[in-house]
């Protein structure tokens, strides 16, 4: 595979681009569908009876390890909840059994069980107020139209908040980014690499981490719904400035699609402008 393949809706995926077949079944990601080929004119032809076609415009991405194939489409698209997505939700109000949260401003509220927190019991449940932020996992999106989406902050099997960090986000600040940028940030922050260009073309987190080491470092939580939460825990005036600076770096990189070199420049420039000594 030399050059990346750009597909438009209705285009067939050429079979040489698919991951080499092994025992595991091929997983179809978003943007692709399986169609049955209409019986061709010559019944004896050995053409496959199924074809993969794209339903969204974007770049074809294959994962040989998981034997998966999907389409990376426009990064500005709207977030559609999928089970196991990590999202940042805001509590809107609470009822007897549930917190009703917002994950995107335009969709109906999603529910988060009052007891779906690590170590929560009927007696000791987290008291979340309106406007509080929660880092949660999408548990189910329901079947059919109009179904409620449910979030959870624990793994139902183990009762632990895994991966670590699920639950109430205290302090800090949330910034809006595009869904594509959120996916990139997730890959970049979950795997640290020694590459020059960073993971997914993002060096901003490594760069900020190095520069803000003296200021006490920072915490970051990325939600698939296009939100990123940033907090500098060391308190005081510098923490607020650093939080805002990190947010500005991330939103500017998202807006202008900056490459690794420009990201480094931007980090230095914003830190200088905000008068944060590194």
């Amino acid at each position, binding site marked *: 595979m030399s050059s*990346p393949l*750009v597909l438009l*809706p209705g285009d067939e995926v050429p079979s040489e681009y698919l991951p080499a077949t092994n025992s595991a079944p091929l997983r179809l990601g978003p943007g692709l*569908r399986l169609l049955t080929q209409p019986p061709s004119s010559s019944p004896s032809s050995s053409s496959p009876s199924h074809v993969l076609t794209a339903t969204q*415009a*974007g770049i074809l991405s294959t994962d040989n390890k998981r034997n998966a194939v999907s389409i990376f489409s*426009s990064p*500005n698209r*709207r977030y*559609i909840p999928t089970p196991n997505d990590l999202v940042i939700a805001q509590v809107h109000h609470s009822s007897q059994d549930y917190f009703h949260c917002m994950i995107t401003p335009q969709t109906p509220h999603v529910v988060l069980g009052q007891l779906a927190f690590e170590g929560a019991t009927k007696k000791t449940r987290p008291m979340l107020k309106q406007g509080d932020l929660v880092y949660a996992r999408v548990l189910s999106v329901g079947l059919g139209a109009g179904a409620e989406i449910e979030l959870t902050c624990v793994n139902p099997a183990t009762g632990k908040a895994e991966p670590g960090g699920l639950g109430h986000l205290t302090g800090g600040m949330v910034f809006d980014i595009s869904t594509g940028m959120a996916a990139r940030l997730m890959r970049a922050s979950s795997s640290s690499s020694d590459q020059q260009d960073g993971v997914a073309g993002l060096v901003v987190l490594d760069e900020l981490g190095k520069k803000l080491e003296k200021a006490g470092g920072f915490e970051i939580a990325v939600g698939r719904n296009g939100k990123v939460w940033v907090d500098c825990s060391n308190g005081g005036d510098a923490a607020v400035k650093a939080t805002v600076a990190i947010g500005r770096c991330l939103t500017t990189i998202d807006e202008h699609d900056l490459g690794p070199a420009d990201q480094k420049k931007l980090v230095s420039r914003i830190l200088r402008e905000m008068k944060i000594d590194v």
Partner: protein
Amino acid sequence: MVGPAATLTPLARADGSASYQCPSTGSNILGSVNAPVELPGRRDALKPEEATVEVFVKPGTAPAGVGERYVEGIIKGVLGRLILGRERGYPRRGVVVTLATVGGDSVGRGDSYLTLLPALLHTALLALLSASVPLSMTFSATVLAVSDSGEIIREPSTEQAAAAKSLHVLAFSSKGHLLLNESQGAFDFETWEKVHQRALAICHGTSAIGSDGDVAMVEDVDGQPLEGTIRETIEDQVHRDYAWKIDAV
């Protein structure tokens, strides 16, 4: 002939948007798509397992009237066939397409909307692609005028369209099937066949048509097929969006 110029995602707040400028008709359209959105009231009751497509056409200066309602209906029909309204997250939600004329000749009250229709359709398609709405295929459309002398004019200006005997808008899917045929005025079958052939050549190039000398000449006049222009616009945008991924390979 100079092809149309299009930009994807010029608007930051919409889920998807496109601006489209057709040099021959001078029309300049800005389109935005929001999908999937919650519909107010019970407008989804008719088809509970499908997405509802809504199209709004806004003329540049005047409030929308009957002409806009009519063309909204046509665009809705075409897009309804294209959008996969049963994909995850789409049933009972709405796909709202808003198309605004921001430049060029706007259509006067009572005048034909057919001259503007291909530009509106292309803008809607590009905006849908930019919003990553699942589609079954893409298409390209063109408008042709037949003058009194029987000459076929591609993408006529407002004056040419007013003087023409008949006007035809044809859209072809990316597989080459006829998707839309709107005609107006007096014409016979023979004329329509010619118009159909010429439109197919404009949208898909001439390779699909037989090899007579007349058609080969048409190719030089029409330049790049519209299908290719649309594909290039998308590919450019994808390459810009995923520069970080492509450069890394």
